[in-house]
């Protein structure tokens, strides 16, 4: 096995999808990379002083400002005349990206900084104990959107972050998944080969928050894609350039292995609503493998 830039010995939970994805991202980026990290699980489990997992220069400031700190890092690197030699990655969880950090991220994208922003989307505030975020899916049971006799959990669908990022007119936007390692690494490399702001959103299962078995991380991640609930898409210069096509599985297969959706299993009406979300994705992004059609080998 080749040397990694994200070393073992950190304190992530067993089966953590984010630690897996973070390693894949930095190893794809390589040693000439500076990482700016929002506050969140990844920062907490990888940098407990006096130890660190990071084999690249790495900085954490606050919950919501990685995109702005990275803007400063990129400006400094440019000032030093090293703009073409060093990759800059800003990264954070879904809350730090889509909620509290959205303004800073929008500013970073709009100003055209040469930065790759990676959002590790585990669909809730896991570091503080599974509270609902703007990227929590519809009907999810979290600690602040609990299911109860008068509620099926989270009231709203996921905020369309990839489309919001894409609306900034940036060269590259992609969704990826901890369940598809090579695809994720290919997207990171592709993003870093392009100048300007890039956004990749990686779906990362959280066994603790999603309440699935720790050995099911990859499987759960794959099911999200294979049901159409987490479409893997790439946009280049605003236009969809690639998608991972699927032979759609019913959403129930994805829902039933996770405790956060357990309350839905006896409510077919709710499962129907979630199936509609998947069906809409399948239609909107053209995810379904047609008869005679081959799966895009690069996706």
């Amino acid at each position: 096995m080749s040397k990694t830039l994200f070393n073992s010995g950190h304190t992530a939970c067993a089966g953590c999808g984010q630690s897996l994805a973070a390693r894949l991202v930095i190893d794809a980026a390589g040693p000439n990379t500076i990482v700016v990290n929002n506050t969140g699980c990844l920062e907490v489990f990888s940098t407990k002083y006096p130890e660190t997992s990071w084999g690249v220069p790495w900085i954490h400031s606050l919950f919501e400002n990685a995109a702005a700190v990275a803007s400063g890092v990129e400006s400094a690197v440019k000032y030093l005349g090293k703009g073409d030699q060093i990759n800059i990655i800003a990264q954070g969880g879904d809350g730090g990206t889509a909620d509290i950090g959205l303004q800073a991220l929008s500013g970073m994208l709009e100003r055209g900084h040469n930065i790759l922003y990676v959002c590790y989307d585990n669909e809730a505030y896991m570091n503080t104990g599974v509270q609902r975020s703007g990227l929590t899916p519809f009907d999810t049971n979290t600690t602040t959107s609990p299911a109860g006799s008068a509620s099926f959990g989270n009231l709203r669908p996921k905020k369309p972050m990839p489309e919001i990022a894409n609306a900034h007119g940036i060269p590259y936007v992609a969704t990826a998944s901890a369940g598809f390692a090579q695809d994720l690494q290919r997207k990171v490399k592709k993003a870093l080969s392009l100048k300007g702001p890039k956004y990749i959103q990686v779906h990362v299962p959280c066994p603790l928050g999603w309440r699935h078995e720790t050995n099911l991380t990859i499987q759960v991640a794959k099911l999200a894609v294979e049901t159409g609930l987490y479409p893997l898409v790439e946009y280049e210069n605003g236009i969809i350039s690639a998608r991972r096509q699927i032979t759609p599985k019913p959403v129930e297969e994805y829902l039933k292995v996770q405790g956060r959706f357990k309350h839905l299993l006896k409510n077919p009406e709710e499962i129907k609503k979630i199936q509609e979300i998947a069906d809409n994705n399948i239609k909107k992004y053209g995810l379904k493998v047609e008869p005679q059609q081959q799966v895009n080998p690069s996706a």
Partner: protein
Amino acid sequence: MKEFLEGSKAIAEIVKLCKPGVISAYPITPQTHIVEGLAQIVADGKLNAQFVNVESEHSAASTVLGSVACGVRSYTATSSQGLFYMAEVLYNIAGMRLPVIMTTAARAISAPINIWNDHQDVVSLRDSGWIQFHAEDIQEAVDLHLIAYRLGEDKSIMLPVMVCIDGFVLTHGVENVNMPSQEEVDKFLPPYNAPYKLDVTNPMTLGPLVDPDFYTETRFALNETHREALELIPKIILEFFKVFGRNYNGLIEGYQIKDAERVIVAMGSVCGTIKEVVDELRKKGKKVGLLKITSLRPFPVAHIYEALKNIPKVAVIDRALSLGSFAPLAGEIRAVFFGKPKKPKIISSFIVGLGGRDITKESIKEIFRLLTGKEKQGEFIDLKPELLRESYE
């Protein structure tokens, strides 16, 4: 060279001479002329810097945090609400030991919204870990920026420095200013050589999680550095004098206090007005004086004690409030004498000049007059009692 300059223009010019590689700011009155000036300087190719127009003060502070973490000298400026919006980043910058230099155009805070000068914004940030200087006039504001970079970037200090200048009074006022040459500035201020930075050839983790086993020591060290800065500032000031020929104390300045019976303690541009009043009253044989606080952080406790210990009557002017408690500067000046063998008989506290209300020579004379009577506690000067009669009954 003496030039007749607006304060903001003078500050933009001195920042240019300090050669920051990254400037980031978000507009807020009355800081705007400073960053507009710098934007033009960069646009004209007179300064090789990245000018980052961010979407908020939070991001302005975060951007310079990132650039200084790369070992590049940086600059930002703000005021009032902008300073408050930056607040969590400012604490973070100090804790991360990154020498960001910032000009703060001191301004009142909302509500009610008010764009004019007082010290409520800057004084609220006194516990942030930033070194905080207060300028009396434009010349001092210019000089304090040079001192700020030199001090903050010193390897023994590595702290951010905020130069507070009174909004409008100094940002928009004009003065004859002695602007130094590039050669003089280069002689005084070496290029920034960061002892730690984000560098792919020497990877480092900055801003890690620190648990109870280590956290206290980081804060202890921060506090110790403020103490050490008290010793370094006079040495830097001496070098400043050698290069530029202007002399400051850098911590406090006594004006006619040696034999004074009544002394006003104050910060910022009001000190100019007080000096005029002192001169007038001295001509009439009144033994009055001024103690100007230049460095609010670190707070020069021993220097203030020495300066005031034999003064019978002291008045502290606050252009800020600590609502529900003592006025901030007055509380700290009183604390200087706690348990000490010598102390003034009276330390009166006055609130004056909030939200840009003029502090006239009459206001200052009134304070000196009131010092002949009983000790006053948070007494408002120039209050309009007729405005306090409204009722909702």
